């Protein structure tokens, strides 16, 4: 399947839009439907599409394993770090009101970083699972 020219060209055309849509879902999650989990899955889906059309080895060059594994852990750390930041600014754990002078802005900031953490972990896990499966099957299906 990785040698199919039509799929490759269509994939190259579509993947930027998939990733852009993921970013939209991520950063517009406060106002419309969406959020970190959905955005993470869409990012992973875009990259898996790339891996399907161009082969897992090419995808591994674009998004190497160490990066995926770092994403896996750093997402949880970002989330927990937001909680600790709340403690540092004198509030409770995961208290966003203290993150800014204006409590509402603090909420927005807290939710933003929490969603970034969720998206990072989710896309990392999804990609890692796919890499694992694909490398076990031995071919680039």
């Amino acid at each position: 399947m990785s040698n199919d020219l039509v799929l490759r060209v269509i994939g190259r055309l579509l993947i930027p839009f998939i990733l852009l849509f993921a970013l939209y879902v991520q950063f517009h999650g406060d106002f419309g439907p969406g959020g970190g989990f959905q955005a993470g899955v869409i990012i992973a889906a875009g990259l898996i599409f790339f891996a399907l059309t161009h082969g897992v080895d090419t995808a591994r060059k674009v998004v190497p394993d160490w990066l995926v594994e770092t994403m896996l852990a750093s997402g949880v750390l970002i989330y927990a770090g937001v909680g600790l930041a709340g403690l540092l600014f004198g509030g409770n754990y995961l208290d966003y009101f203290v993150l800014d002078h204006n409590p509402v802005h603090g909420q927005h900031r807290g939710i933003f970083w929490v969603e970034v953490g969720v998206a990072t972990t989710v896309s990392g896990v999804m990609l890692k699972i796919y890499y694992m499966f694909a490398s076990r099957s031995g071919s680039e299906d």
Partner: protein
Amino acid sequence: MAIAVFTLILTRNLFSVIVLSGIYSFLMATILVALDAVDVAMTEASVGAGISTVLLLGALHLCKSEEAKHAHKPWLPLAVSLSTGALLVYGAFGLPTFGDPAAPIHQNVVPRYMQNETEVPNVVTAVLASFRGYDTLGETTVVFTAGAGLIALLRRRKKTEPEGMQRKDDA
């Protein structure tokens, strides 16, 4: 949707089963959109129909594509699942009608969520990330743990021969 489910039960070719469950997920997503749960619909469409279909196809690549014949007749599991389903349907008759403002779920904590002191326009995001931040932190940790466990399981066996059957339910 019912057609998809019954074909799903009767088909023995695992490839068509995977494709059918993808179709089922998309139909489920449209139902969730009709129920105004757009966030859940998005998750269902991307995870249920997208990622898990790809992962199941990857798992299918590792094993045989025909489901094995059952060694014995599955009457007991069938009876258990049918009676559980009947109980659930019976319980569903006791639920308040859809969208009823006097339903118990709208009486306790929801009014405070709806006042929304975070002033984030999407209430789902506000509840997930702010009111219930601890829950979501736990969920993120669960996802991380799943990934870490998968790495621990699969990396060690790189040199041995692939035994892909038992990995299917992780997708």
